[in-house]
């Protein structure tokens, strides 16, 4: 046999035939799909192909959605027992599982993330959030808010484009379990799985108006935030928009939770398990193209192992398979939009200008679509823009430290505080460091692990409130003493 040294993986594409995308979509209001007036295209960021036309909701649409949600809350949902509400949530979770391949393909087409991730992470976790919260629906008296906690009423929810269906699940599942009805707006570039979710609600025979989905851009979001008929706002997105929302709701009675940006420190101590830390670094920053608010975007490396870790990291990055998101062997997919790509390029250029050393994995990028090779910057200090600002892309800034205290000081020296990672085989050091770090989620010897039972949220400018677990549920409830 001829000795061939390279093991090329033949294309292994997931079938696109699993999904039917309509040429045009409306909104989902009061249990029905209603036509929109204005439309904008949604594209596949891996190919720039137009997938469908999405409606841009204006005041009339948002008013109708809020009205439907209020009616459903007053007549049906607030009167229903928790056990009955739980039944619907269980049903939604099961239907989502049954349609999981369809959801995964649609998510990958619309978002650009690899099918491996939508299939193995996004969709199973989204279903898990519904299962988890379904169990809470008839146990709200154990949520820590007294014996008769009450729902807020109508929740307005605005979600981002990085995990479209998963963020929907994070928002919708606890809201419904707690007895609220919702008006949800998916991100402008990624509406398709939310609209498929609307069909799941229909199949589950969820009472009309309990879930309403209006599509659109920031202007639609503003209509939701400022709507007088909404009792609670839940937003996931940029800190910049989060601040606008906080200002808008400040003079109102609305409750609000915000899940915003991050610039997480991933700290590697010299006594870490090096090979697994490399995996943790890769998973921390290159999972979902780095479009992760809790991404480990600042690698904080002990100087004594810095050289070894960086060399191993580069070798590992060279093995990241970049390309067609629909291929089952792809590790890194497309950047979600041209706007985002420009932002990543702009901040990376700032890294060059400010004197950091750029290294990108040698990979071939497709000609069409929005792509950015996995990249690290070494020689980064606290004073670099790329150490302070959220890039929200596959770009890692590498900083070094000499003592554990210096690592903590650097990790905390940021306006953000969403997540952090600690890598060490020494338990006492891990416990000490986790107590010093000011971040809402701290992973030790792992990164980017999510579970519906675990509260997620930030310190400082990374947000208000928590999502997931009992803490996340309580954001959709008020104790009687608040009445």
């Amino acid at each position, binding site marked *: *046999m001829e000795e061939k*040294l390279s*093991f090329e*993986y033949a294309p*292994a594409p997931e079938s696109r035939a699993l999904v039917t995308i309509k040429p045009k979509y409306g909104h989902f209001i009061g249990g029905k799909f209603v036509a929109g007036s204005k439309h904008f295209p949604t594209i596949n960021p891996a190919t720039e192909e137009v997938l469908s036309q999405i409606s841009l909701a204006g005041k009339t649409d948002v008013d109708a959605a809020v009205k439907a949600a209020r009616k459903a809350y007053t007549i049906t949902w607030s009167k229903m027992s928790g056990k009955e509400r739980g039944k619907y949530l269980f049903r939604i979770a099961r239907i989502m599982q049954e349609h999981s391949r369809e959801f995964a393909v649609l998510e990958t087409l619309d978002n650009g993330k690899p099918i491996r991730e939508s299939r*193995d992470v996004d969709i199973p976790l989204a279903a898990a959030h519904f299962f988890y919260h379904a169990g809470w629906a008839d146990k709200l008296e154990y949520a820590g808010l007294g014996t008769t906690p009450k729902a807020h009423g109508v929740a307005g929810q605005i979600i981002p484009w990085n995990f479209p269906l998963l963020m929907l699940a994070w928002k919708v599942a606890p809201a419904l379990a707690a007895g609220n009805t919702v008006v949800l707006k998916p991100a402008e570039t990624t509406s398709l799985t939310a609209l498929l979710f609307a069909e799941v609600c229909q199949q589950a025979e969820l009472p009309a108006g309990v879930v309403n989905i209006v599509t659109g851009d920031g202007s639609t979001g503003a209509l939701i935030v400022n709507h007088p008929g909404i009792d609670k706002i839940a937003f996931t997105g940029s800190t910049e928009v989060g601040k606008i929302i906080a200002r808008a709701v400040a003079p109102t009675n609305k409750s609000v939770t915000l899940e915003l940006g991050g610039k997480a420190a991933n700290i590697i101590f010299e006594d870490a398990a090096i090979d697994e830390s490399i995996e943790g670094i890769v998973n921390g920053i290159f999972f979902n193209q780095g479009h992760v608010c809790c991404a480990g975007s600042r690698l904080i490396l002990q100087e004594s192992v810095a050289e070894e870790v960086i060399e191993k990291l580069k070798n590992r990055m060279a093995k990241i398979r970049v390309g067609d998101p629909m291929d*089952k062997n792809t590790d890194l997919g497309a950047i979600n939009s041209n706007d985002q790509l420009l932002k990543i390029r702009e901040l990376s250029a700032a890294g060059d200008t400010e004197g950091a050393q750029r290294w990108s994995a040698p990979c071939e990028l497709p000609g069409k679509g929005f792509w950015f090779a996995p990249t690290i910057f070494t020689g980064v200090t606290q004073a670099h823009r790329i150490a302070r600002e959220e890039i929200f892309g596959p770009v890692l800034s590498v900083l070094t430290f000499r003592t554990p205290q210096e690592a903590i000081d650097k990790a905390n020296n940021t306006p953000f505080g969403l997540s952090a990672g600690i890598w060490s085989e020494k338990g006492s050091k891990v416990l000490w460091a986790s107590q010093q770090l000011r971040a809402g989620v701290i992973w030790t010897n*792992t990164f980017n692990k999510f579970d519906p039972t675990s509260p997620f949220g930030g310190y400082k400018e990374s947000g208000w409130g928590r999502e997931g677990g009992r803490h996340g549920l309580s954001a959709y409830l008020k104790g009687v003493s608040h009445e």
Partner: protein
Amino acid sequence: MSFYGLVDGTEASLKKYLGSLSGVDQVGADARAAMLSTRSIKTTSKRWAIDTAITMVDLTTLEGADTPGKVKALCTKAVRPDPTDPSVPSVGAVCVYNDMVEIARTHLDLIGGQHVGVAAVSTAFPSGRASMAVKIQDTKDAIEAGASEIDMVIDRGAFLSGQYIEVFDEIVKIREVCGSKAHLKVIFETGELVTYDNVRKASFLAMAAGADFIKTSTGKVAPAATASVVLVMLEAVRDFYAMTQVRIGVKPAGGIRNTKDAIKQLVLVNETAGPEWLKPSLFRIGASALLNDLLMQRMKIDDGYYASPQYVTID
């Protein structure tokens, strides 16, 4: 012996060397191995992987009931795995007990299988519980009988009680017996070492002591060649290469029964140690039932349907 300049043969230097190794996080290693097992290998790459895997098989019979007839049949199969298709390559080697080596070598030579090696399990396989004198004689016998590869077992008792220098010295002595006549594979029996930290430590110990290959298991203890254990060993040979510029081979054995398992192993090699290891001189798979499944899958790719098992020979 120089031991690549890593140790000087004293217990102190060995302890220092092993103490310098980074630990292995079990959860992380398992997660990486599980991720790599999701790779989807189709069409042309699957065909290439099957043929490559066939050349890497150490076709094995290690039974108390082995007879000259059984071993000869194994040798015939090793040379021409599919008698109806001459494009199927021969396997890497046959792997037998010490007393069957001469029968295997003679028969292979007789049927045109000079290119197929004979591996002998040695050093009181599978337990390793015998005196050093017996272990040395065991190895000498096998080499004199024509073994080109020696699969020795380490003394797990010594390893687990922290007597690393004993394990090291044994490998060094068997290495000396092998000289340039036989390749040395060192079997850890990872199912008895249990932790990945131990697997990593054993790997570096064996490589410094002169192993040409490091091998997971005897096939007599479960779990054997799990994806995670093979991952840890592949990381070890990769790192050892970075330190010494010498490539050590890896041989998973035990529990790899079908094509899917074998392809997962090749993916692990490709994405961990690297494509340089994807050849029989650096990667072997110890197996018996695997070969027939590889042949069946090969026929399926060529013919488009699954043939009856009667189209592949049982031995």
